[in-house]
C-alpha cells in the first residue's frame, strides 16, 4: 500500500512485522512499519472480527491498535520504532496471560 520515497538519507531500522524482518526509516512509527511491510489489515475488530487498518495516523481513530513487543492494544501510529521491535497484529480482544 505504501513505499519509501527516494532521496532520503534516514538510517534504516530493522524491525519484525508479523514475524517477518522489515527495514524502516528511522523515526517511523510502528503503524508505518506495518503499512510498509504490506500487512493489509493490522487488527481485527474486538466485536465483529472484521479486518481493520490504520486510518488517521495521528492518534485520533485508534484503528491502528497493535501488539508491540508483546504489549497488546498499543496505538501503532504513536510509537516510534526501535531496533528489533516486534510489531504484530492485534487480533480481537486483549488476552490475559497469567
Amino acid at each position: 500500500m505504501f513505499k519509501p520515497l527516494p532521496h532520503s538519507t534516514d538510517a534504516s531500522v530493522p524491525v519484525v512485522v508479523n514475524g517477518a524482518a522489515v527495514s524502516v526509516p528511522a523515526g517511523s512509527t510502528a503503524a508505518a512499519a506495518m503499512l510498509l511491510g504490506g500487512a493489509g489489515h493490522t487488527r481485527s475488530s474486538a466485536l465483529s472480527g472484521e479486518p481493520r487498518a490504520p486510518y488517521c495516523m495521528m492518534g485520533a481513530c485508534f484503528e491502528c491498535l497493535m501488539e508491540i513487543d508483546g504489549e497488546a492494544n498499543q496505538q501503532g501510529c504513536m510509537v516510534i520504532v526501535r531496533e528489533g521491535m516486534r510489531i504484530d497484529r492485534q487480533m480481537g480482544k486483549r488476552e490475559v496471560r497469567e
Partner: protein
Amino acid sequence: MANVDYDAIIIGGGLVGTAVAYGLARRGKKPVVLDEGDIAYRASRGNFGLVWVQSKGFGVPEYQRWTRRSSADWAAFSAELQKETGIYSGHERSGGVTICLSDDELERRATRMAQLQREAGDFGFEYEMLDHAALKKLITAIGPDVVGASHTKYDGHANPLYTLRALHAALLKHGGTYVPHARVEAIQAARNHFTITVGDVTYEAPRLVLGAGLGNNALGKLVGLNVPVQPSRGQIIVTERVAPVLPMPTLMIRQTVEGTLMIGESREEAGFDDTTSPEILHTLAERAAKTFPFLRHTCIVRTWAALRVMAPDGLPIYEQSAQYPGAFVCTCHSGVTLAAAHALHYAGYVIDGAIPPELARFSTKRFDHVQAVTSQH
C-alpha cells in the same frame, strides 16, 4: 393541544421510572413517562450494574428480603425483556464475591455475613467465606495480595444501559409513552387526579409516580411527600475489552458482557459535583491492581462519576401521599438490583393504590423524626 388520558404519569425516565412504567404497561395500563433532556443527573447512566445481595440490609431484614426477591425475579425479568425487545440485558446470576485484601477486612466481612444470616431468620441466607486457595479455584485471576472473600449464590450483574434501553423499548411496545425534554416544574394535585403541563401539552392521570431520583426531593414537596434523598458520589473506571477472565462479579470489579472491566464502589459526599477526582480513581486502581494484577496492563477507556440517590439511612423510599392519594414515590440507590421488583411488583401497588405492609419499613414515616431534627437547626 388535546389532552390524552393516561392511567399514570411517571416522572423520570431512568431505570426506576421506566421500570415502574413498563410494569404498568405490561399490565395493560397506559403510562406516560416525562423525562429531562440528554444531560441530567442520571444515576442510571453511571451505574455499576451489580444485581447485588450480599451487602444489603444489615439490621434491616426487610431490605434483605426485598433485594433477594428482586434478585430472584431478575432472570425471568431479563428473559421477558429479551423476548419483548430482542435486547439482552446482560444479566447473569452467577454468584458474586466481596474480595478482602487483609485479614482484618476478611474478619469484618465474616462478621457482617453472619449478621445477615442471623437476621434472615427462617428466610435463610446461604453464604461461604473463602480463603485465598478456595477463591483461586473460583476466580483464577486473583493476585497474591488477596486474602479471601465472601461468596453468595444470590449475587449477579447486568448491563444497566442495555437494561434501560430494553425497558424503554418494552414500554413503547406495550403502548406506553415516553416524552423527553419534559422537565416537570409544577404539579396540579388532587386526590387520585394529577395534572402536569409541560410546554403546550397537558398530561392528566389518576396516578402519579415520582421516579426522578434526586429530583424527587423537590417534586415530593409538590404532592405532600417527604423524600429527603441526597447525592452520594461514586466514581467508576472502565477498561478496554478483554477476553473473558472473570467468571463472576466482585463488589468492586466486574467484567461486562462486552468484555470491558468496570472498577467502582467509591462513596463520598460531594454535593452535586459529578466530576471525577484523581485521588479516588487512584485508590480504586490501586485496589483493583492488587486484586487482579493483569489489570495493571489493561488500558482505561473512560472514567466517570455519578450521583447515587441516597436516603439518610440508605434504604429505598416507597410511599403513597396521604394528602394526595394516588401519588407515589419510588426511589432507591440500587436501580439495577431492584429493577425487577419495581417492574413486576411495585407497578402493581400503584395500580392497587396501596403499598403492602411488608414494605412499611420503607415508608417516609421514618423521616418524620429526621425532619423534626433538621428543622431545629
